């Protein structure tokens, strides 16, 4: 396989890159992650020499097919499931929509009720709202407890005779709070109801064994786990229960049509393989780093509120509200200092609204507006903490002393992770 030497590979002026590299701190791993160099290494041959169509029966097709199937095995190993239960898609959103629509479609004639939480990602709640508005499903939304945890008993109580699915995320993208999915699955299964979990944020950050969690469906995205953007997957314990959303050729065992995105699937496999190798150790490191960041920030701003502090959280996620501050402004101020984080607000047409997740947790809207999410990962190290804390504390104090004018228009920021 040919590969250009790293020094000649791209046209960006070296100085520009170096300036950027030396200045910046990336703490937005829940939004997206850099592609791991090992992952890039694995995918490059498929971007260049091995460009066959994986559905072709000739040598070039077989080579591409091998890449795709190897990736499926790698993802299966990370998740502890047989590879034939995994289907590649273009992203987490597509995966989630496919599962929800499949269930709605399968039960369209007999009535379909779905129980979910009020802290799901927009691709879950908007899909359910659409299905609800077309009369295909009825939805019950369960609010989390104070610390952001969904109570399995409340899920159980919401289940009706026509309930076909319980869908609760494994870890929340904003707070990092990990949900008691196994307990939720037990409650649902006891009543004969299938369970789906959006595990996009949890994948690679905490070990996920789909068999142990006893899930019927789960969904994943590569770009949260150091793979590239534009590739996702779903797990279906029984693949025959899936109704394809994109139809055409027979790819992905007829569950998802369209020429396989071979290089990106290979990359997802390599990312899964690396996560399988390093996730335990990495989780320990990130947990320590996050806790250090958390205590140092509270030291600097004692009235700061950590969201979901009492709950089990993803190791690298810190969602912290600075009362008297607008998180969206703080994020922009931090960006000017070369620090990439995000505010607590999720994808929404009106971004000045506080996050639906934080509000559902019972955090007062004026506090929730001051939310900033730091999400740590492979791009971070201890030596970034000092500067980060000093800068953040200074900016919070500055903003309190000089609140942004009312006439100042908020940029339309749409955080979609």
């Amino acid at each position, binding site marked *: 396989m040919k590969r250009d030497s790293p020094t000649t*590979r*791209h*046209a960006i002026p070296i100085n520009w890159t170096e300036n950027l*590299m030396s200045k910046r701190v990336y703490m*937005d791993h829940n*939004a*997206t*992650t*850099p592609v791991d160099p090992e992952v*890039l290494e694995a995918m490059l041959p498929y*971007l*260049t020499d091995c*460009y*066959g*169509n994986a*559905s*072709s*029966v*000739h*040598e*070039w097709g077989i080579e591409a097919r091998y890449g795709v199937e190897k990736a499926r095995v790698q993802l299966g190993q990370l998740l502890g499931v047989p590879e034939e239960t995994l289907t590649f*898609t*273009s*992203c*987490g*959103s597509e995966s*989630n929509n496919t599962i929800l629509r499949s269930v709605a479609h399968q039960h369209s004639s007999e009535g379909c009720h779905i129980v979910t939480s009020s802290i799901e990602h*927009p*691709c879950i709640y*908007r*899909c359910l*709202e659409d299905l609800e508005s077309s009369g295909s499903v009825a939805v019950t939304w369960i609010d989390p407890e104070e610390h952001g945890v969904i109570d399995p008993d409340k899920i159980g109580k919401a289940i009706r005779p026509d309930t076909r699915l319980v869908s609760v995320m494994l870890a929340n993208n904003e707070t990092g709070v990990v949900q008691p999915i196994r307990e939720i699955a037990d409650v649902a299964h006891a009543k004969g109801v299938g369970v789906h979990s959006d595990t996009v944020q949890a994948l690679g950050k905490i070990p996920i064994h789909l068999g142990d969690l006893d899930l019927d469906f789960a969904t994943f*995205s590569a770009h949260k786990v150091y793979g*590239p*953007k*534009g590739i996702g997957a779903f797990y279906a314990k029984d693949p025959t229960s899936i109704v394809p*959303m*994109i*139809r*055409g*050729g*027979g*790819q992905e065992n007829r569950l998802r*049509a*369209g*020429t*396989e*995105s071979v*290089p*990106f699937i290979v990359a997802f496999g390599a990312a899964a393989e690396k996560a399988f190798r390093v996730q335990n150790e990495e989780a320990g490191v990130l947990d320590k780093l996050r806790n250090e960041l958390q205590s140092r920030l509270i030291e600097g701003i004692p009235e700061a509120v950590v969201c979901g502090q009492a709950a089990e959280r993803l190791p690298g996620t810190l969602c912290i509200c600075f009362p008297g501050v607008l998180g969206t402004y703080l994020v*922009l101020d*931090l*960006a000017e200092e070369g620090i*990439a984080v*995000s505010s607590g607000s999720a*994808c929404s047409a009106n971004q000045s609204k506080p996050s639906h997740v934080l509000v559902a947790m019972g955090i007062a809207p004026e506090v929730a507006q001051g939310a900033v999410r730091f999400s740590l990962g492979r791009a971070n190290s201890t030596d970034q903490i000092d500067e980060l804390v000093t800068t953040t504390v200074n900016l919070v104090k500055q903003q309190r002393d000089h609140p942004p004018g009312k006439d100042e228009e908020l*940029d339309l920021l*749409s955080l*979609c*992770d």
Partner: protein
Amino acid sequence: MNTLYFDNNATTCVAPEVKEAILPFLEERYGNPSSPHHFGGSIEGDLSTARQKVAALIGASPKEIFFTSGGTESDNLAIRGVLSMDTTRKHIVTTAVEHSAVLVQCRELEKMGIDVTYLPVDSEGTLNLSDLEKSIRPDTALVSIMWANNETGVLFPIDEVSRICQDRGILLHVDGVQAVGKAPIDLTQTRIDLLAISGHKIHAPKGVGALYVRSGIKIKPLFWGGNQERGRRPGTEPVPMIVGFGKAAELALESIREDSGRMRLQRDTLERGILERIPDTIVNGGKDPRLPNTLSVCFDRVEGEALLMLMDQNGIVASSGSACLSHKLEPSHVLLAMGVGEETAQGAVRFGLSRYTSDEEIQQLLETMPALVDKVRSLTRRVGRS
């Protein structure tokens, strides 16, 4: 062994310039375009440049381009997106020779109570426009017709189709996956409402495509999530692929005239050479207009799959038809619709050229093919046809 890759209608290699354009976005410029911090420079700007380049390739405005995961998704989005906007219209018109992205979807729609008219083609693979006129009904929601056939390369008269649809006030969706980048397409001259495009047919990576939606046309998204692609297509944008697609579109636009001229000469040389050297061979859809890079032939008394396997062993890569259907051993629905006999259709081989195909490769192919066809014919004679 030097491989001769003649399967460019299935997929193409990533152009070196495209790979160069992609790499920074797989390395340091990894930010999420929806994030406010523009990590690694303004990624939004790169997305809009890519959008402009794809738009320029087809004579569209950037705001009419919606990126998707590929041609199949674009076709699905177009057809279902239109049908769900007005559920009182329950009829669509398409052709019998469409790609599976359209055909399989249409068959599924039939199960859901949608009427589908499949227009026939003649022995040259062309449409009879009066069939189209007659098929349109008061409740027709959409006409969905491919620009170029993926197996034969036959180009449909989209200008005339467009005029008929405009006269009758019917929306027109065109599957442009094979045509875009190979045939000159200018939507300022030809009015189309929706056009599906794929990246990997024009030397961009697999996993990215686009749907052109003419300004003012409303469609419902296939699925829901964030506000990416103005809500028409949610999901974090696959930045490297989109940037690569933009670069590929730019390259295609720059060289389309030169490339298609050269490929046409090469294809014609190949066609003539095969007909001269290999008896009992027919060309499928050989009358113009046809894509300049495509040659579909049927070798009589040949099992196409056996020939392709033998070619593969000899370092020649081609296909019997659509890769998306290649695990089926049934004869091509396109050739059957053209009236090619089932047995003859079994002997179909499709050669797809690209801008990287050289004259030497054409000569090598011509020198190798006759012996391979002979070998398969003699084997077939011995074993007999089942």
